[in-house]
């Protein structure tokens, strides 16, 4: 195919999009909405996974001390913890301090629980030498006397991983339905183009244009609809993600948590969305070409 021909096909594609204005608009919107959801879902899932991984990398194990423990028993427990293998540091946080933390993060309402009303436990924060040791250390601590509960990042991370799996599955179903809608709308748009150009197609056939020469403009029209449909959600996600990232990274300052940095994550996501858009468009078009374009 000559370069000039490529230019011609693209021009024809744009012409058709303009000519079938409203149908094209519907198809482009369907692609845009689909890709906005795809992009939003991917950004959410990948960031939660990132957070989960951060938590998993956390080395601390929280040991809740049984309320029945006397002072000496608690000190004994601290010594036992310090003597464990792979333990680097053991810090103590009293239930009063814990409550202050809660009040600090969640508000004054929790001040009601001061003194005897305090439902919290004294906590030992055990840092292990490496993230891999946390679950082993936690298991060794569990059977010890006066240990009420043991909590570590791994369990928290597992919960988050499970959550992302659920989001992914539900989102996936919605997205697949939307992709079908988009493909259907695109194939309808292309079908209208094919009908409105039946005389041109007939003439092309009669003078001996090759089948692919006849097909290309329709395929390109579909791909263009997909491409334009990808531009809108890409721009939207770009702005949304950057502002969320700006807001959240302030919030996360001083912790080991972080979101994926916009570069390269956003570039990869936009590239992916554009690719999906073009594939959806070309697929919708190919369906109509097969059914309605007799070449």
């Amino acid at each position, binding site marked *: 195919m*000559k370069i000039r021909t490529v230019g*011609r096909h693209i021009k024809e594609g744009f012409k058709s999009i303009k000519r079938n204005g409203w149908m094209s608009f519907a198809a482009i919107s369907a692609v845009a909405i689909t890709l906005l959801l795809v992009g939003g879902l991917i950004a959410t899932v990948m960031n939660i996974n990132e957070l989960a991984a951060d938590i998993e990398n956390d080395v601390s194990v929280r040991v809740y001390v049984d309320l029945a423990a006397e002072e000496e028993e608690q000190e004994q427990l601290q010594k036992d913890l310090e003597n464990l293998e792979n333990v680097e540091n053991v810090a103590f946080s009293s239930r009063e301090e814990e409550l202050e933390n809660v009040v600090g993060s969640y508000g004054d309402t929790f001040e009601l629980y001061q003194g005897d009303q305090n439902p919290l436990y004294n906590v030992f924060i055990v840092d292990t030498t490496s993230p891999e040791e946390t679950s082993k250390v936690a298991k060794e601590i569990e059977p010890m006397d006066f240990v009420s509960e043991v909590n570590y990042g791994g369990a928290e991370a597992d919960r988050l991983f499970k959550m992302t799996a659920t989001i992914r599955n539900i989102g996936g179903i919605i997205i697949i339905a939307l992709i079908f809608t988009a493909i259907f709308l695109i194939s309808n748009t292309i079908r209208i183009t094919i009908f409105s150009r039946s*005389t041109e197609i007939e003439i*092309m*056939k*009669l*003078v001996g*244009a090759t089948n692919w020469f*006849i097909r290309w403009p329709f395929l390109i029209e579909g791909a263009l609809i997909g491409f334009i449909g990808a531009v809108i959600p890409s721009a939207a996600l770009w702005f949304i993600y950057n502002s969320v990232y700006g807001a959240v990274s302030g919030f996360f300052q001083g912790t080991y948590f972080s979101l994926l940095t916009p570069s390269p994550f956003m570039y990869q996501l936009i590239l992916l969305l554009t690719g999906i858009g073009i594939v959806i468009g070309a697929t919708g078009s190919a369906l109509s070409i097969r059914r309605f374009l007799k070449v």
Partner: protein
Amino acid sequence: MIEMKNVSKVYGNGITAIHDLSVQIEQGEFVYVVGPSGAGKSTFMRLMYREVLPTKGTVSVGDFDINEMKEKNVPFLRRQVGVVFQDFKLLPTLTVFENIAYAMEVLEKSTRQIEARVEEVLKLVKLEHKTDMYPNELSGGEQQRVAIARAIANMPRVLVADEPTGNLDPDTSAGIMKILETINAQGTTIIMATHNSEIVNKYKHRVIVIDDGRITRDEEKGGYTYEN
């Protein structure tokens, strides 16, 4: 050039359009195809550019075997066979020049080639002064001349014309005939289906009469007669 051997065509609805028909047409001939409506003239013509496939028998056009050829080679057969219709089939949104150029563009000819050739064929059909007009600004005869110019723009070896003077008055028809004869004189085979007895009797050429799907008469320089 064109050869049909024992060709039959039965359409899906059971109607037999062509019955065991054999014929040979040489390169450079001018052939009228006459006969009553529904006799199979159109099917006979459409077999030549593979718009329909024979149910039985063989059809060959130039080096192409219509039965055996691959689907993807059909465009190359069509480049050898120009087609003109009674209803012209011009694109209303394109000018005379663009209509003809269109047929060359879709074969990826260069702009220079296109400009030179369009000018040439427009001179041949005597429309060089109406290059930039749109089809609806032209008379029926002029539109048919544009259609002919388009059909020969890519220099086919055969020109198939299905009742090209069907809707035209005698004077205009005479003009079309002169153009077709000029094209024929340049070596292009012309196959023309017609109902116009005046033309067949005035411009003498080979006449093939088709009736009920069979050739009932085939004469060099024949006249327009067939039994109903």
